[in-house]
């Protein structure tokens, strides 16, 4: 029973490549069309049209026209991060529920604009995150269990094993700027934001404790592409949460061959009674066979960091085979299903815009700290 029409913003070389498929898999949803602002960058419109064509969907040239349609109930928002605050607010004010790619906005101002519009319109929202993954749910259960005692520290690492490292100059210290002026580049993204948002959102969701102080560092350890764009490929934050809880997160991209799967995804909970460690890859088979070892794919000129499904498919990217997950592989289905459940049941998502905006604020504080060398008080 298809109840919800989904309008898709953003095209090829965005996460819409994946999100459109996830919405399409939910029996309650029907993909309606692609659209974008009429004055969006021409390349973005072209990429939207190309994905629309691939999925045999229309591309509506004027966003207002698309938002006026009665058969559109949800907007899946994968425009560049720089436009998400404005475009997302417009979608919400048109009465559409908004599914937000991560991060939901570039800075707290944009995030707050979006949060306010969503609140005024009374629509549902959700930012993509890992919280609906099977392993995140297990961590949450453990945290809620008396086994741990009182939480005293939480450490979360998310690193993407993609890209060809070793090209950035060694020992060249990164000079950070206090604000992120630009996020979207063809060849790279600021990784403390792009990947670190998973870790920050996870920590925030697990603890539900306000972050009081942030101390951070960003670096260009691995990739010349990031250096050329003057953005970091790695970042780490050390935080103090309400109640005197210490938290650290690591987010970044460290190269195709740095991990047997997609990269480290790990949480450590330190409690007064126990310490528990959770590794998303721990429940696995390890396979050694007479087959070629994994080879890093040649860099795609439009995606050297391996960010998009379409570009990796074009270069014949072969997935890693040595570690094979056991059990639940339906994280995506659960993530998108959870959002539709919220709409159906009239309840807020656990990662709604208001909550996700906290992650934007924390990471932005991290940049300020990395730039100043000081502890930033929130």
């Amino acid at each position, binding site marked *: 029973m298809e109840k919800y029409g989904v309008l898709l913003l953003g095209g090829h070389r965005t996460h819409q490549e994946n999100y459109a498929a996830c919405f399409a898999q939910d029996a309650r949803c029907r993909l309606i069309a692609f659209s974008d602002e009429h004055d969006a960058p021409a390349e973005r419109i072209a990429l939207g049209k190309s994905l629309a064509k691939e999925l045999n969907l229309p591309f509506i040239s004027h966003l207002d026209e698309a938002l006026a349609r009665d058969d559109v109930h949800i907007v899946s928002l994968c425009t560049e991060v720089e436009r998400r605050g404005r475009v997302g607010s417009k979608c919400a004010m048109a009465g559409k529920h908004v599914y937000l790619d991560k991060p939901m906005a570039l800075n707290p101002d944009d995030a707050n604009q979006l949060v306010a519009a969503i609140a005024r319109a009374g629509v549902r929202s959700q930012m993509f995150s890992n919280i609906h993954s099977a392993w995140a749910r297990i961590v949450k259960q453990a945290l809620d269990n008396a086994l741990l005692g009182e939480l*005293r*520290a939480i*450490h979360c*690492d998310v690193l993407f094993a993609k890209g060809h*490292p*070793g090209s*950035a100059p*060694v*020992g*060249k*210290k*990164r000079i950070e700027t206090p604000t992120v002026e630009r996020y979207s580049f063809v060849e790279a993204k600021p990784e403390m934001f792009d990947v670190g948002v998973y870790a920050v959102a996870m920590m925030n969701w697990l603890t539900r404790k306000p972050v009081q102080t942030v*101390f951070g*560092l960003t*670096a*260009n*350890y*691995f990739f010349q592409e990031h250096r050329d764009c003057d953005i970091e490929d*790695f970042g*780490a934050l*050390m935080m*103090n949460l309400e109640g005197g809880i*210490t938290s*650290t997160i*690591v987010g970044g991209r*460290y*190269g195709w*061959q*740095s*991990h047997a799967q997609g990269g*480290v995804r790990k949480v*450590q909970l*330190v*409690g*007064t009674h*126990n*310490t528990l*460690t959770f590794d998303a890859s721990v429940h696995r088979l390890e396979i050694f066979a007479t087959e070629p070892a994994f080879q890093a794919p040649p860099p795609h000129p439009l995606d050297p960091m391996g960010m998009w499904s379409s570009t990796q498919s074009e270069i014949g990217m072969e997935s890693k085979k040595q570690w094979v997950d056991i059990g639940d592989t339906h994280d995506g289905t659960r993530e998108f299903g959870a959002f539709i459940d919220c709409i159906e049941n009239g309840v807020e998502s656990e990662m709604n815009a208001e909550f996700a905006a906290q992650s934007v604020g924390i990471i932005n504080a991290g940049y300020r700290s990395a730039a100043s*060398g*000081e*502890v930033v008080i929130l």
Partner: protein
Amino acid sequence: MEAVKKSIQNVIETGRIGSPVFLRCALQVGNETDSGSKASLLHPLAVVASLANGWMPSKPENVYAQGDAEATQVTLMVKYRGGQLALLSVNRVETGTGVDMMLVGNKGVIYHETPTGRHRFGVQPFKLGETGELTNIISQSLETGTPIQMEG
């Protein structure tokens, strides 16, 4: 610990992981001393800091610690002059001492975890080293709640 330290040093020297840039190290220390009292976590943290300082190719520049060395946990961030970083944490556990670490180089990674559970008896017990570094600076940061800039 000395065996792990030496093994990792050997790998670093082969150049397989390139130049070390980041260390994440979580040390769990057994809860009680021989006398039955809880030992301070300051020395174990300083020992882990010594490991990090030995592997990183530049000197510590800035040290920031959080937690309570007499309570459950302490966590340390060490920024190095060359831009490298170490995130080091030490906490108490009821079971034996062990370590979980990830040393990231600019061309590769070393992962190591002390065997736990039914595997823990398959290796020699993990023994903490004697040598600690940055002890006074860590104490100062814990007392003041601020990052401490290293001299020189």
